[in-house]
């Protein structure tokens, strides 16, 4: 209790920048004067009396140091001084500072990049059934290297006319917003995907179910959300009871239907979604009919026996 009291006083003094210096100076002055007077009354010569008083008092500098250390938080004060000194040093030699900063930036950046690639490509490759049969669809030259290539009506056309793939699915990796559940809010980003997305990839949920083609009946017909394993763990404490609850993404309510397995983190290398919702609940009715935009990435699974070369025809 006493230690706490003392600590608070020190923090307070430190924060308010109060230093006991002035008070100590006055006290010392008064102390020495009284002692000198007393010495004179005892018969010393004035000069001798003052000297004796100072001798008895001891080293003022040492007292002042102890006093100061007791007033505030000497450790923090020293730390601040050190930081200020370091900054002054850096400021004085800008070339060195620049080079050091750049070296650190490049070093850290390179490490992050390499780890990112290794993590995505080697440590956690796309985990779906028979990935060798899955191909992204890029029908026009301009779509090379692009993620968003196809409008929703065009995707439906491909699906209808397709003969080489056993199925075609699409997704848009640019869904996101504030996720609200209970009293909590979290900024998230995820995919909107066509109804057959999970079935086509052959992924199985760890909890609940995935949304399917049968859930989708036109615009706004499937307010269902699948959580990624990491979001489920970080935001919902891996509670299986989350299935069936309602969350809000932005203003729109979604029912959580299931949780994806930990190995499955979407169908892009470097951007891992927090959740999946159906495309029909991401785009409005108008945009679902619009042929001028191209919000979807389309991929399909080749029919057994069809070579990629034949599929290209």
């Amino acid at each position, binding site marked *: 209790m*006493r*230690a706490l009291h003392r600590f608070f*006083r020190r923090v307070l003094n430190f924060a308010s920048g109060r230093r006991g210096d002035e008070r100590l100076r006055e*006290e010392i002055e008064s102390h020495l004067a009284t002692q000198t007077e007393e010495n004179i009354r005892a018969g010393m010569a004035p000069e001798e009396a003052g000297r004796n008083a100072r001798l008895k008092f*001891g080293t003022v500098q040492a007292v002042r140091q102890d006093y100061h250390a007791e007033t505030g938080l000497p450790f923090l004060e020293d730390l601040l001084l050190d930081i200020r000194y370091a900054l002054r040093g850096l400021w004085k030699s800008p070339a060195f500072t620049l080079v050091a900063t750049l070296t650190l930036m490049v070093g850290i950046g390179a490490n992050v990049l390499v780890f990112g690639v290794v993590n995505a490509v080697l440590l956690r490759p796309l985990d779906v059934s028979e990935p060798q049969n899955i191909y992204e669809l890029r029908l026009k030259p301009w779509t090379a290297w692009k993620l968003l290539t196809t409008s929703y009506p065009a995707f439906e056309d491909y699906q209808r006319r397709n003969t080489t793939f056993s199925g075609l699915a699409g997704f848009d990796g640019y869904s996101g917003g504030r996720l609200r559940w209970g009293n909590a809010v979290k900024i998230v980003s995820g995919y909107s995907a066509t109804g057959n997305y999970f079935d086509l990839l052959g992924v199985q949920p760890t909890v609940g179910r995935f949304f399917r083609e049968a859930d989708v009946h036109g615009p706004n017909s499937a307010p269902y959300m699948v959580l990624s394993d990491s979001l489920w763990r970080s935001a919902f404490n891996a509670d299986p009871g989350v299935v069936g609850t309602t969350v809000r993404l932005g203003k729109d309510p979604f029912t959580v239907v299931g949780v994806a397995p930990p190995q499955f983190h979407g169908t892009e290398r470097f951007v891992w979604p927090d959740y999946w919702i159906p495309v029909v609940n991401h785009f409005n009715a108008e945009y679902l009919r619009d042929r001028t935009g191209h919000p979807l990435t389309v991929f399909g699974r080749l029919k057994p026996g069809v070579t990629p070369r034949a599929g290209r025809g």
Partner: protein
Amino acid sequence: MKQKKDVQQGTLALMVLKTLEVLGPLHGYGIARRIEQISGDLLSVNQGTLYPVLLRLEQEGAVASEWDSSENNRRARFYRLTRAGRKLLGAEKRDWEKTAAIIARFFDVKAKDLA
């Protein structure tokens, strides 16, 4: 020549508390003077070391202080014991007596007592 004894860590605070208990509110010089008198010049205390101790006691809430004018009309800071300080003094006193009693027993022991 008889060596003056250095004051032990922590005992100075105890002396300050006891002095304030006996004499009531007192300024730094007064406290230093009393300690000197009572210890009969056996202790070598630089009077200045008293002030950090006083500050520490104040930060712990054991004493409070305010400016006032002294008996010879000089401005001086007066220290007085708070209730927490009184309690602290009691506890420290008991501690001290217990320690002293234990040490005393060790000194009194003779070989035949242990046989």
